[in-house]
């Protein structure tokens, strides 16, 4: 890994990283949580963390690295047979041992084998969510040859010695290849590879339907070697995504002449001859390569912020595809400003038909797939959300290359937060639904989904540890986004935006873990915020604010039996001459998270008194004497704490307070009248 040399020396920052390193040990998953066959490196080692510094140098793009450390380069040629849905591939992989250890074996991910049969880990683990049905047609990858070329070694095809399966496990997505000799740190290998793919019918991001082909996870891909010499290899799990080293992909695609190609990286050569179209794409500083080929793609090009954006869409989808482009037009500059400039020349947006929707909503370097039926009402912002979300992955997955199996919240969760923020900034309160006066925000959708499952299991765990796909979605995506959005609303957009921006810039082309994220947030927002994050992510942290009581009464003198000067006097309580009211409210915080909150008290004359509670302690009482009676109290009136489990108990009213439910009665009756008119004679 190439160390960063432009960061300023900053002792407090260093100490915070060291503290974070210690925290890493506390956060290390137990043996129970870690899947047995895949030795996952959950975070960068503490020693590695302590070296590079963060700090304000990463608040703008001046300190951004220009390129990633080129660890693995792929030079491949792929020939598509669209009738048989097969790809013949061959080429070379150049790989460098960037660890500090000798390497005796290589691990290759053959993820297309996830769709080979129902004994694959992917199909055995179906727990709901996308890709839960077996493909209509199986897919696989057969490696034909893997010749290892290293200095002082006779080139040998090592594939016959490869171990494709583990004992007792028929999964074929994670292959071990013994090396002819130990590979020393810094040494480079060249692998000559030949392989044949049979694509599945579209399932989970890849496959074919008719002449449509979406090609992802299609080549033998070397797993990432962590700095300490441990391979971060793992089978293709049902809920997990990927993890790899950065490098340069030089891929030549050979398809029938009538087909349009969309692929990672810019087209550097294109020829048409002998009924075949041959395109060469080269892209550096990325960790994957995907492509699509179809003879029905329509194309549209636009330059946005200096980036050539290509939009591929089916006939009849121009309206919804235009919404993709509008989303990119907003989000590309927005994300660039917030998380560091987009470093690539091109971006390809692929909008598939609905009959291949499993190919949609996916991210690859410089290529994203969006989605949505051709007839999506303008007030339903699903296409916009999908496009913005997948674009956000160019940062949280692409440029910050976290381990998507070990810590899925670091890519999907942070990216969901980026999506929520961007959609809110772009479309306001109606950022998810804006239809007939009903305005639902993306942030509130996430909060509602997340809060219902807050107690089920931790957010910060490996993807294959989640019990269900629903929990994976609600916790990894929605709860992380709800946490970040809560912090943004409570502590300010400036600070939280700066923390996320600093994290994204500091770890561009790196492979950080939760420790690094928490350390940056601690650096920018303080230890208490980092603790709130840690509790929420790792320990099912939760909070529920409650307006317990609201009372008000006319101010009266004290009554009772008093012994004064040896005489017993029975004093009646009477209204004070100066008048006024004694009012009090009690608000409560349930749960493990401490968050500051506003408390708004509405008086009989309509005025509002707002108090601030730092959230410390179990409850807080506000009492006062005033000229006007209290009517009601609302905790968190601005809905800043989206993590609040229950907003219904955030309100309390005095006996004369509250506003009733006339609006609901009026609307429900009206809608029912219309429904009756539709069915009644």
């Amino acid at each position: 890994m190439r160390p960063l040399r432009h960061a300023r020396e900053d002792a407090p920052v260093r100490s915070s990283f060291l503290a974070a390193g210690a925290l890493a040990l506390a956060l290390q998953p137990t043996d129970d949580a870690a899947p047995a066959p895949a030795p996952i490196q959950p975070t960068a080692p503490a020693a590695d963390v302590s070296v590079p510094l963060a700090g304000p140098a990463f608040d703008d793009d001046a300190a951004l690295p220009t390129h990633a450390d080129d660890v693995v380069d792929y030079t491949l040629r792929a020939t598509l047979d669209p009738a048989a849905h097969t790809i013949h591939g061959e080429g070379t992989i150049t790989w460098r041992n960037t660890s500090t250890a000798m390497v005796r074996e290589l691990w290759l991910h053959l993820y297309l084998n996830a769709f080979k049969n129902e004994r694959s880990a992917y199909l055995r683990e179906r727990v709901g969510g996308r890709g839960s049905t077996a493909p209509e047609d199986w897919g696989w990858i057969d490696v034909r040859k893997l010749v290892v070329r290293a200095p002082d070694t006779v080139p040998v095809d090592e594939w016959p010695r490869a171990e494709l399966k583990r004992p007792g496990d028929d999964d074929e997505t994670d292959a071990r290849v013994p090396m002819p000799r130990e590979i020393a740190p810094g040494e480079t290998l060249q692998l000559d590879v030949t392989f044949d793919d049979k694509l599945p019918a579209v399932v989970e991001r890849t496959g074919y339907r008719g002449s449509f082909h979406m090609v992802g996870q299609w080549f033998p891909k070397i797993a990432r070697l962590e700095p300490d010499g441990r391979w971060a290899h793992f089978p293709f799990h049902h809920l997990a995504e990927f993890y790899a080293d950065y490098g340069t992909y030089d891929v030549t695609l050979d398809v029938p002449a009538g087909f349009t190609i969309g692929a990672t990286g810019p087209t550097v050569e294109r020829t048409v001859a002998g009924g075949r179209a041959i395109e060469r794409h080269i892209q550096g500083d990325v960790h994957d390569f995907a492509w699509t080929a179809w003879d029905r793609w329509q194309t549209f090009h636009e330059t946005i912020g200096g980036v050539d954006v290509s939009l591929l869409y089916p006939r009849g989808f121009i309206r919804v595809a235009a919404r993709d482009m509008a989303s990119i037009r907003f989000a590309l500059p927005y994300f660039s400003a917030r998380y560091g400039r987009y470093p690539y020349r091109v971006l390809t947006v692929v909008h598939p038909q609905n009959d291949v929707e499993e190919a949609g909503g996916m991210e690859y370097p410089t290529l994203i797939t969006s989605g949505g039926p051709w007839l999506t009402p303008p007030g339903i912002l699903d296409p916009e959300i999908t496009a913005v979300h997948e674009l956000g992955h160019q940062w949280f997955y692409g440029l910050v290359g976290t381990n998507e199996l070990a810590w899925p919240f670091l890519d999907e969760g942070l990216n969901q937060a980026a999506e929520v923020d961007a959609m809110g900034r772009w479309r306001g309160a109606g950022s998810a639904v804006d239809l007939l006066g009903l305005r639902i925000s993306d942030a509130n959708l996430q909060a509602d989904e997340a809060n219902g499952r807050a107690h089920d299991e931790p957010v910060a765990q490996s993807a294959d540890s989640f019990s269900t796909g629903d929990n994976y979605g609600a916790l990894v995506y929605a709860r992380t986004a709800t946490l970040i959005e809560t912090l943004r609303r409570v502590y300010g957009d400036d600070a939280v935006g700066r923390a996320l921006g600093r994290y994204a810039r500091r770890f561009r082309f790196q492979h950080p873990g939760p420790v690094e994220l928490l350390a940056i947030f601690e650096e920018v927002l303080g230890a208490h915020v980092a603790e709130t994050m840690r509790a929420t992510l790792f320990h099912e942290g939760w909070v529920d604010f409650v307006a317990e009581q609201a009372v008000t009464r006319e101010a009266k003198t004290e009554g009772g039996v008093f012994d004064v000067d040896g005489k017993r006097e029975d004093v009646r309580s009477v209204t004070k001459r100066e008048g006024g009211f004694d009012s009090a409210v009690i608000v409560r915080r349930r749960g493990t998270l401490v968050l500051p909150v506003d408390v708004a008290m509405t008086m009989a004359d309509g005025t509002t008194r707002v108090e601030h509670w730092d959230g410390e302690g179990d409850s807080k009482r506000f009492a006062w004497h005033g000229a006007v009676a209290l009517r009601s109290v609302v905790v968190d009136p601005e809905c800043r704490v989206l993590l609040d489990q229950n907003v219904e108990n955030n309100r309390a009213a005095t006996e004369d307070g509250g506003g009733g439910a006339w609006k609901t009665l009026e609307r429900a009756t009206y809608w029912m009248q219309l429904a009756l008119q539709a069915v009644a004679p």
Partner: protein
Amino acid sequence: MSEATATDDLGLLTTDAMRARRHPRALLGLWAWETALAALVGLPLASLARDAFGADPRGDGALWSPGGRELLSFATRELHGLNAIAIAAVAVLLAGAVAGLVPMAATMTAIAYATRDRKAAGVIRCVGEGLRQFPAMVLLLVIASISQGILVAVGLAAGSIVEAWMHSGMGEARAQQIEGLLLLVFVAAVGAIGVAHDLARAAVVRFKVSGGRGLMLGARTFRLAPVALSWSWAWRSLASLAPIVAAAWAAERLGGRGGIALGALLILHQAVVLARVGLRTSWLARALRAVDTSLRRVA
């Protein structure tokens, strides 16, 4: 002008006199009937909302605040209550579809008949007529509903087959657009059955005949002027959508506020409902005139 036909103590009005606008009380009666039924659903829903957000100074206005935080929370946390209310709403709709035949027939009686001294028929007599015609109306409803249901099912199946056939060649969007066009043909046919159904109802009221006989008379009336009658029904149906759209536009601007804004919205919404009752009743009056005229033409 058709001859008046004596039925009990009520006399049939002339064809031209069968006008909905001459019976505002009947219209109000229909509106009141629909409002009462709708309140059976609105009241428990409002009660649920009051329990959840009644303590808010805006009351349940919080439910309708931009962003939908409270609305989503309400939908999630009160799911069981909302499910119960949804089932009740379906029951009310079914009851409204069947029991509503009585006020409908009563309204048509009010439009078509008067007392012998030319006074309005009166609520009791009209409702009595409605109750008497209820079995015939139910028979017509069952026949029309089954016919329309079969047509919808056939339309969906045909559309699906055509879409699948064209999908690979024309692409998803074009294939679905053609499927939609095909479905529109079936929807038009369903509408035509609806028109014939209303004409049959009018025949039952006008001629005091059984459901089967009314069906034949209604079908015959429709055959005599299918385009004119379909258009007469269609423009009123289309026109009845306009106030809904206008009210939605206004509601969006009035937002979740209470007080005067809520009062204004209440008046506006009820004006919409009343206008739609008026258009529907106007069509039923037109159906009465049509069957009356067809009888004369056949004679």
